[in-house]
């Protein structure tokens, strides 16, 4: 199963209620898979091809506002178009799942895989002080797992969750274990779990309002303080990462998604050459595992951040490291995936030799 298809299938099985999307390479398989699966017959899930990405993200808003599990997916230019909608979703505190199969930018760029939307994803591509909870899958299995986990975290925090994938993971096939079907929310469950949802004002409660507007600054500030508290809670509770070969490591790669897979192979190659290097793979990009990375600086002599970008996550690594050890960035970009050999060479040149 391709990563994109695994994501789609897992979403159905996670009890998704609705998917709203617009075609764009390299993730059109998500909607294509869903349409072919007739989830409307399988589970009652709605799948709709919207007239644009802007419409799609606002459909997500309208659906999420009724307490449903809704999702969309796109690739870089389409995700840029969704930035206003994403900011609204965060402002109105609506749970939803968004997948970005990142391709090389800027502009129309190339459809080849890239990691150059890290800043957009983690610091807020839209306006205002908001954060997405960002999950970075590195395998087809994680594409599937993070569909379900994404929904669950989205509802836990009433916040959009972004699965930051790329063309490589989306197009790749690997063995994947899929969770069994989970039922969609019942109307009763929605009333229970999401009492804020606009499901129709019944006599037993006040009307529900979904909005991100606060005319008075004082209220808006209070709202922002509450949002910030939520993001701090995520930083406490949701940091996820994987460490590979770090126990005896003198050097470390920090890489996520596709790059982290390359780094795994690079570790093998480097160790064959007697270089003790490990890998720290952030799984959540926000919240970023900054404490773990800070701790690593007591052991490793240098860190190479490998990204398919001109250097974005490296800033978060540097913020965590605060100058205690050398942190360098190695990147290929514009749709090029670095090879394991290149990565080892970069480690030698930029960190060990440098």
């Amino acid at each position, binding site marked *: 199963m391709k990563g994109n298809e695994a994501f789609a299938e897992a979403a159905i099985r996670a009890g998704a209620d609705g998917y709203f999307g617009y075609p764009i390479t390299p993730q059109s398989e998500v909607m294509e898979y869903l349409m072919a699966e007739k989830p409307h017959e399988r589970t009652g899930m709605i799948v709709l091809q919207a007239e644009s990405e802007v419409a799609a993200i606002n459909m997500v808003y309208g659906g999420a506002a009724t307490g449903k599990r809704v999702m969309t997916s796109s690739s870089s230019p389409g995700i840029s178009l969704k930035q206003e909608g994403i900011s609204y979703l965060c402002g109105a505190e609506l749970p939803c799942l968004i997948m970005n199969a990142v391709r090389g930018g800027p502009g129309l760029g190339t459809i080849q895989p890239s990691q150059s939307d890290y800043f957009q994803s983690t610091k807020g591509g839209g306006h205002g002080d908001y954060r997405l909870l960002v999950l970075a899958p590195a395998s087809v299995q994680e594409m599937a797992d993070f569909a379900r986990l994404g929904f669950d975290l989205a509802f836990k925090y009433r916040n959009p969750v972004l699965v930051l994938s790329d063309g490589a993971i989306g197009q790749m*096939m*690997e063995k994947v274990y899929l969770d069994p079907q989970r039922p969609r929310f019942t109307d009763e469950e929605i009333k229970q779990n999401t009492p804020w949802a606009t499901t129709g004002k019944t006599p037993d409660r006040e009307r529900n309002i979904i909005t991100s507007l606060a005319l008075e600054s004082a209220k808006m500030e209070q709202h922002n303080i509450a949002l910030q508290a939520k993001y701090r809670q995520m930083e406490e509770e949701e940091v996820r990462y994987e460490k590979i070969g770090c126990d005896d490591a003198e050097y470390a790669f920090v890489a996520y998604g596709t790059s982290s897979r390359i780094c795994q192979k690079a570790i093998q190659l480097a160790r064959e050459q007697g270089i003790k290097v490990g890998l720290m793979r952030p799984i959540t990009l926000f919240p970023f595992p900054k404490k773990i990375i800070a701790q690593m600086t007591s052991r490793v002599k240098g860190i190479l951040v490998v990204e398919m970008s001109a250097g974005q996550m490296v800033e978060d690594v540097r913020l965590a490291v605060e100058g205690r050890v050398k942190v360098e960035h190695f990147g290929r970009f514009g749709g090029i995936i670095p090879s394991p050999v290149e990565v080892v060479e970069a480690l030698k040149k930029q960190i060990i030799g440098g």
Partner: protein
Amino acid sequence: MTEEIIIAGFGGQGVLSMGKILAYSGVMQDKEVSWMPSYGPEMRGGTANVTVIISDERISSPILNAYDTAIILNQQSMDKFESTVKPGGILIYDPNGITRHPERKDISIYSIEAAEKAGELGLSKVFNMIVLGGFLKLKPIVSMEYIHKGLQKSLPARHHVLIPENEKAIEVGKELIKAKQTLN
């Protein structure tokens, strides 16, 4: 066991599906697999290639610099991938359309005249399976039983009638493959 394979040729030659059947067969045989296409920006035409890894262990990078086996179906791919075969590895190619034959001395080289044979036998649609047969002859990493299951899994149900034809093509390929140079 880990087998790292690149399959490369024209878009229309069934390169990706050959890889897919191999990968699915691997899954059926309970192996770890990875199938990673280099998808081009153009829908049609142009070259296509796919990296297939079949292993008993968890697979690290789905993208590689060097391969145990390269299966090469046009000249452009020959130019690009001949050098990426690991020393001691295998290169399989269909000489049809190849103007510059492989030159490396440190690898085993096999040719398989699959295009020609496919035309002869009216098996053009399963040309790629002939090539796959050739590979499986050399590297029987998945058994025919699982190839059958892989075909079932990767072909849409309406094409299942074609499975015997596919299997026949694989057998043809096993016969057809010829060593040009082997390392012992």
